[in-house]
């Protein structure tokens, strides 16, 4: 077990317990920058931990990042770990990140669906959903990215509890989702919401449930282009970008559609590597390159958010 985040291995996949230990180490090592917030408990009672990166102030404008709402997308949780360390290393060293943190807070939820993630380690590596029981069905779990109150239950989600895209009995029925919603709502000053998935190499913005263009479509598209250009500058990884419905498929009840409708203009979803060799089974040696390039896309969006207040 790592005794510090300096000796922690970022080049392998980790269990939930190891990630929790990492979080506690990072907080202990950086008490003036990082704190841990528990925003609720999962269906099976696990804490929903969020890292807060803050240099002070009260209820500053903030950026939300979540990784791993779909539990089998292991590279996303691994990338979240790398981001957390990167933020602590770059603050005070990197001009852009320092400027962001001098004015804004960053919230990072590394394991958004801990029950599903634990289940991928113990029983079924390819589990995607939450682990809540569905009344009247032998099938377990809800797709936490079809459970948000944005076109809930429309085309682009399934009403079948056995489906991988089951939307759940009602919007926000999943405590993992409701906890984020309550946190975001109560905070009231979140200016960018970035949800990280894998795979397919895409950067998407609202909407997914409707073909209607977002009010800020042109601006969101411009920022997305800058982000994917910056991302590609490191290893040449090519991303496509656009609204969810035009870029991949119709998806109702997704997180960024709800955040956008709730007034968070800069709402984006990344789909990380790859484009069709490994899918959800991305080899661990690709964790760091994936995280490094994604960081460039992320910092572009965060920097834009800082410089274009609304």
């Amino acid at each position, binding site marked *: 077990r790592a005794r510090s985040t300096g000796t922690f*291995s970022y080049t*392998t*996949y980790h269990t939930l317990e190891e990630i929790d230990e990492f979080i506690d180490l990072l907080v202990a090592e950086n008490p003036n920058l990082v704190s841990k917030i528990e925003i609720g408990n999962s269906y099976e009672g696990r804490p929903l931990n969020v890292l807060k990166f803050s240099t002070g102030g009260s209820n500053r404008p903030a950026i939300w990042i979540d990784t791993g709402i779909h539990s089998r997308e292991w590279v996303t949780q691994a990338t979240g770990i790398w981001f957390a360390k990167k933020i602590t290393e770059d603050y005070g060293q990197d001009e852009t990140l320092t400027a962001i943190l001098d004015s804004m807070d960053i919230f990072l939820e590394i394991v958004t669906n801990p029950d599903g993630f634990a289940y991928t380690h*113990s*029983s*079924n*590596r*390819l589990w995607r959903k939450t682990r809540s029981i569905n009344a009247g069905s032998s099938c377990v779990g809800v797709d936490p990215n079809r459970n948000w109150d944005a076109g809930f239950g429309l085309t682009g989600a399934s009403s079948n509890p*056995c489906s*991988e*895209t089951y939307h759940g009995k009602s919007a926000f029925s999943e405590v993992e989702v409701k906890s984020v919603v309550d946190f975001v709502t109560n905070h009231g000053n979140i200016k960018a919401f970035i949800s990280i998935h894998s*795979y*397919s190499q895409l950067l998407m913005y609202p909407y997914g449930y409707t073909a209607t263009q977002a009010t800020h479509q042109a601006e969101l598209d411009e920022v997305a282009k800058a982000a994917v250009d910056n991302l590609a500058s490191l290893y040449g990884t090519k991303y496509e970008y656009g609204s969810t419905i035009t870029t*991949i*498929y*119709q998806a109702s009840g997704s997180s960024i559609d709800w955040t956008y409708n709730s007034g968070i203009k800069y709402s984006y979803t990344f789909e990380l590597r790859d484009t*069709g*060799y*490994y*899918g*959800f*089974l991305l*080899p*661990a040696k690709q964790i760091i390159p994936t995280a490094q390039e994604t960081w460039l896309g992320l910092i572009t969006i965060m920097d834009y958010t800082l410089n274009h207040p609304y």
Partner: protein
Amino acid sequence: KEDFSGHQVLRISTANEAQVEKVRELEKLEHLQLDFWRGPSYPSIPIDVRVPFPSVQSVKVFLEANGIKYSTMIEDVQLLLDEEQEEMLAFRS
């Protein structure tokens, strides 16, 4: 732990909307236990699906009968999972 031996991930390339619709029909056949990693959407976007070993033959026959192109993205899912586990165990040791 769930065993994925013999499970394949197929990449399906559809040429038109009619072929996309055919794949949607496949998606509805619950007994095949298909797991769409990337579901059917537009003809230009590939579809990736994990097919359990007992369904591999049926799915390939269905695709071929309908003139739908596919390739095998992952030959045996369990082999990749075994490699992943070995790496994690090696790290721990």
